[in-house]
């Protein structure tokens, strides 16, 4: 567990002392020797205990998985659907029902084989030794994997898995896609759009810096073979999750905002792309109209698209999907479930939950409310799990990937008996 408690007292006094003006107070930024996560930390905060929490790379025993911490609205329940997969992150489902799961640090891609018997649900490692293979997507029998420095395609993967044989070497699409391979914010989400194109974000290679608007801080789309590049969204600092509206086909995406500007700002974002090529403000304008203290002029937010909704600063919204299933109550139709991995760059932790976003009548904004909570213990300022992605199953249940415990939960719904049908 992260050692949050022992630093809490000093960190709080530090936060009170510097208040909301952390970024503004000090222009003396850290020198070139800072590690990536400390970029932008002012010299006053050089001894700050705030740092990213290490992700376990070892198996969490089933009895230690914090299933009984999970709280859901009435009628919903959670169970462990699969486990024993350290670092499990982004999910994609094959046509034959295999669940593919990407990771970061441990370099693996897992496949959970379709099996209704949860006691014996099996998983295999389909790839290993990759550099942060976070992104997985499935189309026409092929698994696509995005690592920091590579894009790979595994053809007919489910038939190879079903036959119990070796999985052939993947097609190397790295050159065809021609994406930057920066380590910083270089782990990628992957998803196919309703247009059949493969959507790939490229994060800013920094905490905050000016970037080439055609390469970094973007969401690109490609034909599945890597041809016909298009920049779909610009000024997106680091999106690690998106989905397409089931009716309009619009791209909605989460975005993680800048660290070290303040404990209570800028907000993380949920965005809607209404027009290809739209600019969302990074690095000049953050959240809802917050001008960057270093790079932004007074009118820096003019002309940029503002978020459809904001979330707590540093709460790290990642994987998100629209819900179209028949299991959950009607109000969840076309709502978005958003996994928040949880904060490190603020003293009092936030996130570590699933939020649900309901879209406004005009289709342009969204309202957010908590859905799955309990993995953050606010009294201890400590956490027991980190939701990073969600995925709807054919029966309408929702899978949730918990990176901290290498577990996949299944959320299902049964109408409570006090509700009149």
């Amino acid at each position, binding site marked *: 567990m*992260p050692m949050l408690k022992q630093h809490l007292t000093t960190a709080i006094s530090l936060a009170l002392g510097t208040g909301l003006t952390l970024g503004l107070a000090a222009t003396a930024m850290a020198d070139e020797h800072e590690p990536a996560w400390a970029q932008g930390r002012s010299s006053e905060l050089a001894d700050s205990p705030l740092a990213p929490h290490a992700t376990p790379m070892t198996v969490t025993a089933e009895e230690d998985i914090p299933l009984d911490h999970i709280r859901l609205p009435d009628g919903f329940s959670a169970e462990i659907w699969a486990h024993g997969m350290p670092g499990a992150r982004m999910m994609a489902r094959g046509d034959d029902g295999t669940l593919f799961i990407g990771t970061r640090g441990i*370099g693996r891609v897992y496949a959970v084989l379709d099996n209704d018997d949860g006691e014996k649900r099996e*998983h*295999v490692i389909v790839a290993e030794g990759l550099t942060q293979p976070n992104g997985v997507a499935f189309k026409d029998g092929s698994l696509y994997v995005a690592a920091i420095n590579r894009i790979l395609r595994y053809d007919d993967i489910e038939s190879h898995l079903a036959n*119990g044989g070796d999985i052939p070497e993947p097609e190397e699409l790295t050159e065809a896609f021609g994406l930057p391979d920066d380590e910083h914010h270089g782990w990628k989400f992957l998803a196919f759009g309703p247009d059949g194109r493969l959507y790939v974000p490229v994060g800013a290679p920094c905490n905050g810096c000016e970037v080439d608007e055609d390469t970094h801080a973007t969401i690109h789309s490609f034909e599945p073979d890597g041809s016909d590049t298009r920049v779909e969204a610009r000024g997106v600092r680091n999106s690690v999750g998106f989905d397409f509206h089931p009716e309009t086909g619009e791209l909605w995406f989460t975005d993680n905002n800048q660290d070290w500007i303040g404990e209570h700002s800028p907000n993380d974002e949920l965005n809607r792309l209404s027009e290809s090529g739209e600019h969302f403000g990074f690095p000049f304008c953050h959240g809802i109209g917050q001008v960057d203290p270093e790079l932004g002029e007074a009118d820096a937010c003019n002309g940029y698209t503002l978020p459809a909704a904001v979330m707590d600063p540093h709460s790290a919204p990642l994987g998100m999907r629209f819900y179209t299933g028949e299991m959950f109550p009607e109000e969840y139709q076309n709502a978005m479930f958003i996994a928040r991995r949880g904060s490190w760059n603020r003293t009092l932790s936030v996130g570590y939950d699933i939020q649900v976003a309901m879209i406004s009548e005009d289709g342009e904004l969204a309202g957010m409310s908590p859905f799955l909570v309990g993995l953050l213990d606010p009294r201890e300022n400590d956490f027991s799990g980190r939701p990073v992605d969600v995925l709807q199953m054919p029966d309408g249940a929702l899978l949730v990937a918990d990176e901290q415990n290498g577990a996949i939960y299944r959320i299902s719904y049964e109408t409570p008996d006090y509700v009149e049908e």
Partner: protein
Amino acid sequence: MRLTTRAPWRRALVAWGGAAALGLSLALPAAEDAPAVGLPFEEQVQVCGACHGSDGNSQQAGTPSLAGQPELTIVNQMIYFRERLRQNEVMTPQARGLPDGEIQALAAYYHEQPVATPEGDPDPELKALGQELAAQQRCASCHQSDYRGREQMPRLAGQREDYLVAAMIAYRDRTRGGPDTTMIDVMRGVPDEDIEAMAHYLTYLHAEE
């Protein structure tokens, strides 16, 4: 739960549940398991101890001491070796196929071992210079003010001087593979003489505890 029997590599095409922790893989060709795999704990400690010292205090040039290291430091590096994410001629084969539970048990053991006093006497001038440089580099912000390390960030106090020098140079020159790129950023362009001074300071820091 410890699995006591292991299916042959090629037959283990489907790993269930915890069996994936054994590092079985469909995608990659068969690889030899490390010599320590499946041995009783006492014999595993002997395998490691042949280079790292029986009590985790290394007597071998260029080989780091493990005594007193945070558990997660050892666990993470062993997993990087096992998964071939960190390539090292000696250690990558030594970690191959070691289950999570065995790695965690070894890490817990070495964490508990007392750190031995380094041989020889420090050069006070070099040590003072190293202290100043380490402060400038803000090494303590991750490795703790007493350089005892924390979680995945290793203990530096009392580590072998030759190992610290070699490790820092390897980070600077980007010859030390592995997923942790933090030290590459930190060490960029640091001259040899600064590295030598910092290593000297850190090695003898422990001697005065």
